């Protein structure tokens, strides 16, 4: 496995060097159907963003972009499918923040170096939600209770060691509590976790605020905090952890469009260009606004650096909460 990875990396370097010469010929377009792999289930945030983007790429390039949900293995299945495909531009997919966490918790050897980042699609900050009949009306109240009664409360949002678990455990750790002072109940994604929250099955949920927005607006859940430094436009009154917590803890997941490592540069830059144009369009802005999210974008170089930096900081959190393998 290790041998294979280094081989892929080596190929990537050669391909990268060769492609540098043809830097400005970003004129590749697909001439048959493209497979767009989503490592997460239909109906979730990654799925919605990917389907929208795939449909706009389809419109732009006049070739079908078939969205395939390769779920399972806490994201390993889908990410492996993207990384192991031929880097010919006919298989791309949504590589998400889990590429920076899965290898630390020992799920896979796959890292961000096994993929070619093409464009940033979304940044998704976490939240702290409680049901509308919860006794807690502030994050500090919740944390005080957890400090005095460790293990009394439960929280959910994703699988064990998944990004929303790290959001909670990392926040508790940063605030000087035991990372399991609020016990984590694994779920198969945000939707079942939110169902548990409103049914009174768990006390807290820490999914993306955008995922809980419908429930918050309906008055079935209360948002105690937004783990970000800027307020969300659709819910501007949710307190920011960057301001309310002493540690200034924040955590956001991200979604990229990436291909396998070793993608020829003219293919990669054609994708980057096409997606840049889509992201700048009104249609994309409207779509983002409807989900209560902001339009984000990054150049390919910035994105690579961002993923490398996230890999390091998330590794530290995983180490601190004792999930590292």
């Amino acid at each position, binding site marked *: 496995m290790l041998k294979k990875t280094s081989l892929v990396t080596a190929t990537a370097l050669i391909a990268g060097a060769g492609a540098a010469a043809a830097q400005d010929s970003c004129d590749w377009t697909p001439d048959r159907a493209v497979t767009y792999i989503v490592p997460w289930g239909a*109906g979730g945030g990654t799925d919605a963003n990917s389907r929208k983007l795939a449909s706009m790429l389809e419109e732009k390039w006049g070739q079908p972009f078939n969205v395939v949900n390769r779920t*399972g293995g806490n994201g390993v*299945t889908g990410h492996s499918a993207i990384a192991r495909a031929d880097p010919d531009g006919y298989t791309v997919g949504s590589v998400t923040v889990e590429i920076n966490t899965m290898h630390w918790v020992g799920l896979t050897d796959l890292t961000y170096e096994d993929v070619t980042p093409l464009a940033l699609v979304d940044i998704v900050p976490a939240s702290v939600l409680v049901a509308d009949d919860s006794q807690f009306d502030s994050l500090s109240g919740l944390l005080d209770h957890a400090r005095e009664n460790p293990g009394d409360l439960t929280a959910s949002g994703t699988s064990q060691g998944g990004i929303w678990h790290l959001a909670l455990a990392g926040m508790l750790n940063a605030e000087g509590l035991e990372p399991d002072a609020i016990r984590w109940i694994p779920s198969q994604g945000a939707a*079942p976790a*939110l*169902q548990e929250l*409103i049914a009174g099955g768990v006390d807290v949920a820490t999914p993306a605020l955008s995922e809980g927005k419908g429930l918050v*607006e*309906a008055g079935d859940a209360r948002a105690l905090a937004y783990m970000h430094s800027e307020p969300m436009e659709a819910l501007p009154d949710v307190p920011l952890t960057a301001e309310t917590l002493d540690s200034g803890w924040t955590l956001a997941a991200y979604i990229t469009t990436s291909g396998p490592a070793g993608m020829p540069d003219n293919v990669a830059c054609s994708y980057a260009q096409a997606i840049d144009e889509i992201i700048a369009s009104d249609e994309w802005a409207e*779509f983002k606004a409807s989900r209560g999210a902001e339009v984000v974008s990054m150049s390919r170089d910035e994105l690579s650096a961002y993923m490398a930096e996230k890999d390091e900081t998330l590794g530290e959190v995983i180490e601190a909460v004792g999930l590292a393998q």
Partner: protein
Amino acid sequence: MELVTLLAAVFEPQLLLTILLCTLYGSFVGAMPGLTATMAVALLVPFTYFMDPVQAVAAIVATTTTAIFAGDISGALLRMPGTPASAAYVEDAHALARAGRPRTTLFVSLFAASIGGIIGVLLLASATPLLARIASRFSSDEAFWLATLGLSCAVFVGGASVPRNFASLFIGLAIASVGIDVAVGHPRFTFGINDLYDGISFIPAMIGLFAIAEILRNAETSDPTRLGQLSVEPLRTALAGAWGQIRQRKLGILRSGVGGTFIGALPGAGADIAAWIAYAVSRRLSKTPEKFGRGHYEGIVDGGTANNAAVAGAWTPALVFGIPGDSVTAIAIGVLLMKGLTPGPNIFSSDAMLVETLFGAFLVANVVMIVSGGLAIMAASRLLRVPRSMLMPSVLLLSMIGAYAIMGSVTAVWIVLGLGLLGYLMTLARIPIAPAVLGVVLGEVVEDNFMVSMMKAQGDLTGFFDRGTAAVLGVVTLAVWGLLLFRAAREVISGGGSRSRETEKT
């Protein structure tokens, strides 16, 4: 005034045309063994880009309802249910078709489906917020008991003896345990094959156990024209007979329609589970339970009503909370978002007209379905005239394509073939297949909710009875299981295999 605008919107020619085309498309896809309603909708998504929101949603709704009905077509004619929702009563439908009443059976299915869909949409239109309130109280405890209760249906559904039904159910549960376990993420029975990490989903299981096993059974018999000799009754007799059956069973239809809608609204339960539960309840309450599984209309009417009612019910959590009730509504939410509409409580006030038109389109789709479903039945009964030596290889080919399409990997084809052999061996051992499919469908749901509840209660089993609804469901489930085990023990002691032998003869 508002009603006039609404009617004008619903009966707009373009919308009606969309609904008609989609019901035809839905009947085609649904009737193909292995191609599910979900797949039909997924393939439809690219076309919805060119539609306005109401049209897009109407297209999805029309496709799903007819696909769920059309699953009965291949179930009755070939003993290969087109979608898992038809698996519960496939034995009855096939037995009736072989007894020379294929069209009557299918028209009974079609009328039941249409009425079930209409009950579902009426409930949806009048009680969505209320339904959502009830569904939102379901945590993993309640979901666990509901799924466990669903498992007990396996024993009511199969016509065979209780021990054989249990054997089949456990085979299904064993298949469901393949893959990464949900709570701690440990791989089981995967033999290092990456494709098995996701487990074996019910679609390849259904194609293998039903379709491939049936093909093997056909290859075994020496009579090359068995299907061709089936008699097909005249259309007029079929319609009159079917209508007579429906009129006799008003109470059952109402019960199954309301029950099906409610089950569809619950998280994690869809058309398939609704059909199983309705069938089991129907048999329990029937005056002639011994006829079930050998060609009885009662189960077809109730199961067929419930699965289409559930299609409507599944929209409840999607519209009210933006939480998808099943995979079809998950795709539908994606389409709505793409059109700039956010499902959630606000959609009822901000886009009230859209929601009302959606309900209207839902209603129309269920009526139009009678026309296109009728055409599909007429066309499909021609299937019976196709020589078996040509029909079976085509079904095999379609099954392989269906299997490949689900996982996008050749492993799926091997899974289907392996399970086909297993299904064939089960038939030889006179073990019914339907309970195994139920086991595959529910196995993961049961395990997932059990583990989540155990973690919440820190291993305390009494946690399953802590919540009011959960306690009631738990007591009911335990009572049902106790009764079944008692019956099983009695049958084993008295050496009761006679019932299953009779079933085999039909």
